[in-house]
């Protein structure tokens, strides 16, 4: 025979109620028994006693709790509950004083308890059944909440993957376009650029799949990327990278700053014919990171059509919102000549 699992009992309502009444029957049968030996009449009396108790218990469980208590009408619930409790006690007395003679003629029962005693029985029954129901509801709500949180987490992870997925082809697309241009002009820098691109891609594909990466590795990759971009830029471009603070033992969401650096080069360095600049500052504190990137404004890259403009910027904003909710600041300063993005992330050390 297959044993009944706890989960089966937990989910089977009929089984639960049967178990509740059986336990109560077992206990009260022994309480009601007049002699050492339980008589047949005691079995009958205990069943009948429970029948009257069931009326109060189920009025509370099936009507009062779902229709009144669940709507938070607390005072109305208490008043109706008191009426039901008193009514059930009264019914019990009426049942054994009068009704029993019609139901079981030939049997001699009386109401063995006074109203106050019956009232105590009803209160215990109603309170126990209510507590079990409320406990079950609490467990159900807790389980639903847990499932909801899991679903939210899954949804967030899915969205993050989708956003990260936008970066890779975006970046690759731009880089390949650059390499294509170099290849067309038969530049000697082409193999070196391909190699750098390979390093960056290795980081993005193998290491950036984690939720958080070492800040040091992230910065190293950014430096590689900038170096790659430098090779693609002419000598007139001023590219400054300032890193201050201790990068060790800090974690950061992977490739979070990449789209901003990529945009700076795409719209600043590449889009102008005169003097151009990109300034990047990394300030790492005990618990926070400040990232500032500024570039001159140039002519919009023709390779990217209007539909894809702003993808990188919005991508960064969304990822920050999801990964560092209420723990970050994101500021854009857009003037006629320059474009500046400032990001501050707090409590970075907590992400270990």
């Amino acid at each position: 025979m297959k044993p009944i699992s706890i989960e089966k009992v937990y989910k089977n309502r009929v089984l639960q109620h049967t178990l509740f009444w059986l336990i109560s029957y077992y206990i009260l049968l022994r309480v009601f028994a007049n002699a050492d030996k339980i008589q047949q009449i005691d079995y009958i009396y205990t069943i009948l006693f429970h029948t009257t108790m069931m009326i109060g218990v189920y009025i509370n469980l099936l009507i009062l709790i779902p229709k009144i208590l669940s709507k938070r009408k607390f005072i109305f619930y208490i008043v109706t509950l008191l009426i039901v409790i008193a009514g059930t006690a009264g019914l019990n007395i009426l049942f054994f004083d009068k009704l029993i003679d019609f139901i079981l003629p030939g049997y001699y029962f009386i109401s063995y308890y006074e109203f106050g005693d019956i009232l105590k029985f009803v209160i215990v029954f109603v309170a126990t059944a209510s507590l079990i129901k409320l406990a079950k509801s609490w467990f159900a709500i807790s389980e639903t909440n847990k499932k909801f949180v899991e679903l939210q987490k899954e949804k967030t992870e899915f969205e993050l993957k989708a956003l990260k997925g936008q970066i890779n082809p975006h970046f690759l697309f731009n880089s390949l376009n650059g390499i294509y241009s170099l290849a067309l002009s038969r530049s000697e820098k082409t193999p070196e650029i391909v190699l750098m691109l390979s390093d960056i891609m290795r980081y993005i594909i193998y290491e950036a799949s984690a939720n958080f990466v070492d800040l040091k590795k992230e910065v190293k990759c950014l430096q590689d990327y900038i170096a790659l971009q430098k090779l693609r830029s002419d000598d007139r471009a001023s590219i400054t990278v300032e890193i201050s603070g201790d990068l060790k033992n800090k974690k950061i969401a992977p490739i979070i700053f990449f789209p901003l650096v990529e945009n700076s080069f795409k719209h600043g360095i590449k889009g102008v014919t005169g003097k151009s600049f990109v300034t990047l500052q990394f300030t790492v504190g005990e618990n926070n990171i400040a990232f500032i990137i500024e570039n001159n404004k140039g002519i919009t890259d023709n390779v990217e059509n209007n539909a894809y403009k702003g993808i990188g910027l919005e991508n960064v904003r969304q990822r920050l919102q999801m990964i560092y909710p209420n723990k970050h600041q994101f500021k854009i300063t857009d003037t006629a000549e320059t474009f500046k993005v400032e990001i501050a992330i707090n409590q970075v050390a907590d992400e270990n």
Partner: protein
Amino acid sequence: MSLRQAGRKAKVMMMIIVMGLLLSGCFIKSLYPFYTKKDIVYDTRIIGTWLDNDSSKWVIKQLIRWPIKPDSAYQVEIVDKDGKPGSFSAHLFRLNNQLYFDFYPNGKIGSNDLIDASIVLSHSLAKITYTGTHIKMQWFNEVWFEQLLNQNKIRIKNEKVEGGYLLTASTAELQKFIIKYGNDPQAFKTDWGKNQKDKDQEALTFDLKKISNEAN
């Protein structure tokens, strides 16, 4: 066995015999009284000397408790036709417009203090029909009660004792039972059958006739 041990054994035996006699009567016996203070009725017309249908003399007078204090109860001295005496205190009480007598044995019963201290005295119940010069006493039908108990059709606290049952239900329960089933034709039966137990019960249906207003 020493003489002392033999004496003690005899006393215990005597105690058991007396207890058996006391409890084996054809009455329904109860550990608790069938009345409460508020149910008691005291009627001076009951006081007097009465003669029952078995020629036993019943002298009923007001119960005086020690220290001398009249009680709303009766002292009933019964002397049967063979001259054997019996003494009870009796409370007349009304439940659901019906009069009842609660009888309780008076005084010492055993031959010594050990026996008296060991005996559990009990209350007996009789339904009363009083007409001024006549009192009809119908005792609670033990035959019917025993049958119901044996058939598992009655639920009231009791203990099986030698020769019958001793009700151990509280006064409140006893009264509920009397109120509910007091008018059951079987509970206080008047029309008896032919078997011995029925005859015994019938013999316990007394019809008392007042022969004097004096109780002496």
